[in-house]
């Protein structure tokens, strides 16, 4: 008991915790900052998840509305605001989709669509053979089941930890690890190292 208390006392408050706490105490500035910092990421995830931009905007409005109204009841210690909001958005979208499934046409977009070539590297790809290989790689990755693509997306785009991805998607950490492993294998197998090196120059 003693030891625990000392730890809490010497624990320094991170900027994220500070932001979260002033938000909980009703600071509109803090709320606005959370919105500005998170909304792009949330939107990105939402559209990838359901492909319906309008629905995502509606859900985001509801999410931030509820967040403000329930601020006093939210947990004081929040390890990761982004993770909290992403999983909340996920639940809301899935619930809405479940409810409206009958009325909604199938979307044509591929959920968690991989995009392999950042635009700045387009110039390098002139060789037709290389282009063909890139297409194959793209197809191979997008052939992974939807849930697997979502897990890869959450790890590499939103930088959630393996543990967070597992919690959010109700999976075991081992499964997340296996999924990422599978994706890495696909990447390695489809392209010979030389092509990879050519295509994916380090960004900086």
């Amino acid at each position, binding site marked *: 008991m003693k030891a625990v208390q000392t730890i809490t006392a010497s624990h320094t408050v991170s900027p994220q915790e500070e932001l979260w706490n002033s938000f909980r105490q009703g600071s509109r500035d803090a709320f606005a900052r959370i919105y500005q910092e998170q909304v792009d990421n949330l939107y990105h995830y939402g559209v990838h998840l359901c492909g319906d931009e309008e629905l995502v905007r509606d859900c985001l409005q509801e999410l931030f509305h509820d967040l403000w109204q329930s601020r006093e009841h939210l947990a004081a210690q929040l390890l990761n605001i982004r993770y909290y909001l992403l999983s909340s958005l996920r639940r809301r979208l899935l619930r809405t989709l479940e409810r409206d499934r009958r009325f909604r046409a199938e979307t044509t977009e591929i959920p968690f669509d991989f995009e392999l070539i950042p635009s700045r590297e387009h110039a390098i790809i002139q060789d037709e053979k290389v282009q063909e290989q890139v297409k194959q790689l793209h197809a191979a990755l997008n052939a992974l089941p939807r849930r697997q693509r979502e897990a890869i997306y959450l790890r590499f785009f939103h930088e959630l930890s393996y543990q967070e991805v597992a919690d959010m998607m109700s999976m075991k950490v081992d499964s997340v690890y296996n999924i990422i*492993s599978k994706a890495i294998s696909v990447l390695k197998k489809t392209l010979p190292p030389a092509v990879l090196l050519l295509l994916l120059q380090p960004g900086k």
Partner: protein
Amino acid sequence: MQQYHLYTARDFALDEYFQEWVLRPDVKNTYYWDTWLKLHPEKKEAVNMAIQLVRSIHFRDYLMTAAQKEQLWENIWDSIAADDIASPTPAPVPAVSRFSRIFSWKYAAAVLLFAFLGMLWLFMRTPPFRTVTASVATQPGQTKRLLLPDSSEVLLNAGSRLLYTQKEPLVREVWLDGEAWFHVKHKEDNRSFIVHTYDHLSVEVLGTRFNVNNFGNKIAVVLQEGSIKLNITEQQGQQTTQLYLRPGEILRYDKTDGEYSKSKTDAEKVTAWTRGQLVMDEYTVADAILFMQQVFDRHVTVKDPRVLRYSVSGSMPIIYNADTMLMQFEKAFNVRFSKRDDTNHVGEN
């Protein structure tokens, strides 16, 4: 320490810490990997390959325009404002404290006088009131279902004690040590029902179902239905804070420092014991040891402290026999418990 010197490009690409460095380089991880690479130049090729593997994962971008973001932000505030007009938030806590500041002791005295006169009047017109006191306790490994004189229902968990008194006609009071679930019947005359905890916290209700856990250094109050008011006295000074709980909310109070926090919980899970079930959600071996201690007064331990963190999820029936229960836990966690001899630890701190 990780055996990075044995890693292939694929292993690196899968390693969480390595990914962090590629996705989000900072001073610390850059220093770590630069230093590591200097010590293991033969791994440079594998590391480069791994960097490219991690970097090659991209997703299509979807972006809102600045105007869309602005519009969404306005919509959020519009909906919040619409809420405030529809139902002005009652904000009970500040109202109470303002109340106590405005009304000085003179008013309090006047109110007391009125109350006194009121009581006098009540005693004059009703037959003399008889004080009722009752005390019930449970042994380790035993629960009791009680029907209080006011026909409220109480389920007393193992190793607990409940004292009931009704000294005044309009107040029903109990003192709880341990854990109990209450189903308080609402009375037409709105008489209140108060649960005292022998600490700075008490629970006041009219009619409702709730659970109070008052074992050890912590108190947890969970509301199932209705509404309850919590009175918390500051440890220094006499100021009282009043809080309200809504169904599905839990209040945790720490007796050692008087800190408390309110959060959402699954009330059905917390009160599962009243239906003879133990609901385990990431339930650790340490939780099981605490359970054995609270419910059976049985002190057990495990040899390897790392085992304490093992956890399971699911549910099991609570069997009020310490040996059977312990065996159930051993099966669930696949561990062996041994008896803890507490006398050895008395001198330590």
